[in-house]
């Protein structure tokens, strides 16, 4: 059992063009480590040190992980994780 991860366009060069990939992990942090194992370089693009980069939003089942437990947010089989660049906007 695994979670489904939606990959934004700029990172698809690292996932052989795939927009969605299946991956394992009991938390966001672990998921990123596992993704790095398969798609080398992905972690550096997503993280600055231990934290998710300032301009990347990560959602678990449509919920922003900053409203949950950040990179410690737990995952369960069947969850859907979206990696979305922060888009500015207003008014």
């Amino acid at each position, binding site marked *: 059992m695994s979670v489904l991860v939606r990959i*934004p366009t700029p990172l698809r060069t690292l996932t052989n063009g795939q927009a969605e990939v299946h991956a394992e992990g009991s938390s966001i942090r672990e998921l990123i480590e596992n993704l790095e194992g398969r798609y080398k370089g992905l972690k550096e693009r997503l993280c600055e040190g231990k934290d998710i980069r300032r301009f990347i939003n990560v959602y678990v089942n449509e919920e922003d992980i900053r*409203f949950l437990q950040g990179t410690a947010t737990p995952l369960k089989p069947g969850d859907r994780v979206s990696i979305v660049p922060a*888009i500015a*906007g207003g*008014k």
Partner: protein
Amino acid sequence: MAKIKGLKCRECGRPYPAEPLHVCEFCFGPLEVEYDYATLQKIVTRKRIEAGPPSMWRYRDLLPVDEERPVGSHCGMTPLIRARNLADALGAKEVYIKNDAVCHPTLSFKDRVVAVAVTKAMEFGFTVVACASTGNLANSVAAHAAEARLKSFIFIPANLEQGKIVGTLIYDPVLVAVDGNYDEVNRLCSEVADKYGWAFVNINIRPYYAEGSKSFGYEIVEQLGWRTPRHIVVPAAGGSLVTKIWKGLKEFHGLGLIPDCATRMHVAQAAGSSPIVTAIRNRSETIRPVRPNTICKSLAIGNPADGYYAYKAVEESRGSAADPSDDEIIAGMALLAATEGVFTETAGGVTVAAAKRLLEDGVIPRDESVVLSITGNGLKTQEVVGGVLKPPLSIKPTLKSFDAVIAERPDLGADVVSRASNTRRG
């Protein structure tokens, strides 16, 4: 274009060509237009600007467009009003209103950014423009698309004020009312932009679009006689306007158009949606998203993408922030109308109320010059004040009926005044 070097990532500095790109492929930081300031320094002078058209396009050297005949050619150069009555009410000495409630053509500062964005979209050869909006941007994109004869798709949260819906539909765009809040609409649009390849003004055209806001700051400086005010209070949703006004002031200084740049930037948000104000108050660079809950829908962005840069502008300029309550916002709208005859929307109420607080708290000294950024028009958000306004007197079309209602209401002060004393003596 000679004056522009290209785009550059604000986070990691990687360079990109001047194309419809907005995110750094490496670190996802936002891209920004990079100018050739050495060349601009030789060209741009006060005299050259003053000889330009009475619109934001007098600053076209500092805006990222090539087109000789831009879309939205009458946008900007809105009044800067010395607000003496408001100053008296606030107990301050020198208060100005920068009034984009009368910006052409759709009565908000968004016309500035959209004029640049739609002009740029045409230069790039797009045939469809689009946006995610809380209302003012929707109005402006639909209007400018009509002028440019482009098709437009406008995405809004379904619960917007009626004035903003009608003020969009009149231009005949495709209006998509999304069952969700602005942050959800915005997220959806990033995926639509990815798939459909349209010119989303606040997504893939954003680096160019955002530059239009600089003209708000340029105008303040020029209208004050080429000097900077000590304070500017700016409402914030995504945080772009305050960032770009600050950038504009620094550019003027860097180009030698003004001798100094000692303005302090102050951010105003509604208490029900104040992630940037909270960060400034806590001196934390990390902007924690919130779920907006305020009458001020045009500022109801819980996840402000330029929040970090807004924070930096405030920090760099030694500014501050305030987040008035919904009641204070309505009182702010009423105060501006009663003192200066200017009807602003809720975002303007936020600015007035925030300025009032900052003056009361001594953050803005009462003897220093303050500019209040009034960014939108009250006719678009009539619902919020409807409940607090006095109803009209209803009468029959007879003098008797008028006399009767006046007799019942001594509080109105409708005394009979003799002609002689009613004439102003000079």
